[in-house]
């Protein structure tokens, strides 16, 4: 059926034919996608439910009653995760950017700072996070130093910041390196100092370019804040562990995991949206 002429009176017959064809194709693919999804889900679900042991799996991992009972405690622990996440994320951005900026400094005076920054990223990107957590979380309180915090939450956060800042510093440095030297030259030609060119011209462009990898690291951090549980902080993971021990059922772990997923999905979508917006704003359109 050709699109009727009265709907698009301004279109040529050829264009109406093309529209008709495309609409037919689109309808066909929608139909195919819908029916294949239904068939797949039906087969998949049947196989799972009919497989031997499904009832045990269901009661051990998908017990709704256990999930409902354990949710308040896990949610309270998750609130701690969120607060640790917020603090750590801000600190990591500041420290990471600072370390990256130190590495780009020029001049003989800054040689020790450059060296320190390079050594820091090398060491803490290689050092296993779990070992660092043990060292900082259990080792530091054992020193009984005056004025040093002993809270597992704080010390776990410190370990996270130390490790993630090293990664983030490298991301920033890569971003700084992708800004073309001609941008720096233009800034310097206008009389901006090295620092002003960095702040006003290089860093804003670098940060925009590394937003996707940074958000990626942020998703990784969202999960890794759960590691503070190994130090005894009662976060979502630890709360789930307590519930598992109480109920002899693994459903609470699944609840905790689902909470982390619920946090990650919006972040990933946000990353997509931010990138799309930046691309739209700086470039004219086209088929790319």
């Amino acid at each position: 059926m050709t699109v009727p002429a009265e709907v698009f009176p301004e279109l040529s017959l050829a264009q109406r034919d093309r529209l008709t064809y495309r609409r037919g194709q689109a309808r066909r693919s929608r139909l195919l996608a819908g029916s294949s999804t239904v068939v797949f889900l039906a087969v998949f679900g049947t196989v799972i439910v009919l497989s031997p042991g499904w009832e045990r799996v269901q009661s051990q991992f998908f017990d709704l009653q256990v999930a409902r009972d354990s949710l308040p405690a896990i949610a309270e622990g998750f609130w701690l995760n969120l607060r640790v996440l917020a603090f750590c994320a801000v600190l990591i951005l500041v420290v990471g950017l600072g370390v990256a900026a130190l590495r780009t400094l020029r001049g003989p005076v800054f040689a020790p700072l450059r060296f320190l920054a390079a050594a820091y990223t090398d060491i803490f990107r290689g050092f296993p996070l779990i070992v660092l957590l043990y060292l900082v979380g259990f080792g530091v309180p054992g020193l009984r130093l005056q004025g040093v915090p002993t809270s597992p939450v704080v010390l776990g956060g410190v370990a996270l910041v130390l490790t993630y800042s090293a990664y983030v510093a490298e991301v920033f440095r890569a971003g700084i390196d992708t800004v073309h030297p001609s941008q720096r030259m233009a800034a310097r030609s206008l009389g901006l100092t090295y620092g002003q060119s960095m702040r006003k011209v290089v860093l804003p462009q670098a940060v925009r370019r590394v937003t996707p990898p940074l958000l990626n690291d942020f998703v990784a951090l969202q999960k890794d804040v759960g590691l503070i549980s190994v130090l005894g902080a009662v976060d979502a993971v630890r709360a789930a562990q307590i519930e598992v021990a109480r109920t002899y059922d693994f459903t609470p772990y699944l609840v905790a995991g689902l909470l982390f997923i619920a946090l990650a999905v919006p972040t990933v979508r946000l990353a997509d949206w931010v990138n799309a917006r930046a691309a739209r704003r700086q470039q004219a359109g086209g088929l790319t």
Partner: protein
Amino acid sequence: MSDDGSPPNTVPVLEAEGLVKRFGSQPVLSGIDFGVAEHEVVALIGASGSGKSTLLRCVSLLEELDDGTVRLDGDDITDPRADADRVRSRFGVVFQAFNLFPHLSVLENVTLAPRVVHGVSRAEAEDRARGLLDRVGLAAKATEYPDRLSGGQQQRVAIVRALANEPRMLLLDEVTSALDPELVGEVLRLVRELKDEGVTILMATHEMGFARQVADRVVFLDDGRLVEQGPPEVVLVDPRQARTRQFLARVIDAGRL
């Protein structure tokens, strides 16, 4: 920057003496002396690699010289004790590839240096920027980002950005070489207007026809040396040196003169 009819300044705006620049062991400038007087437009011509761009970058302190002295209004700006950042802001440099800041709007591109370097208030800087943009016919593009503009518009914004610093002179580095042929005219028209207002200009260019019409003096560089200089009707029409003749013959072969 306007011509007030006063007698020509006896001190040249720009004076270069014995400029030497090497990239590694490769000499790019091998002892160049020349000057630019107030309100003068000087065109640097020569083949690619003859040292035109390097010369512009060296006098504006964007490249470090290996030897020689540059004086701006009589001040030795190559003195290591001079504030190089301040000195750079006294030149308005326009690049072949525009080098606008893609993350800033046209207005922000133009106001960045006045605000950051000279501490002009935002309102005043924007006011002046809008005035300049209006003069080059780009007032409507003030809030656009550079990538949305045509090459010719971008280059005119780059010229406005250089002018917003109220520089002592303009250094134009092949400002039309990256443009589509139909966009060259609008940029050259602007340069001609600036000349008519008395702006002092040193420009590297491949546009021989334009150099002939606009330049007060043409300087021919070859292999890092100043081979010949003089009025365009001499250097571009009846040069004294054999190498200048050879260069012009090649340019005429290529249909550029």
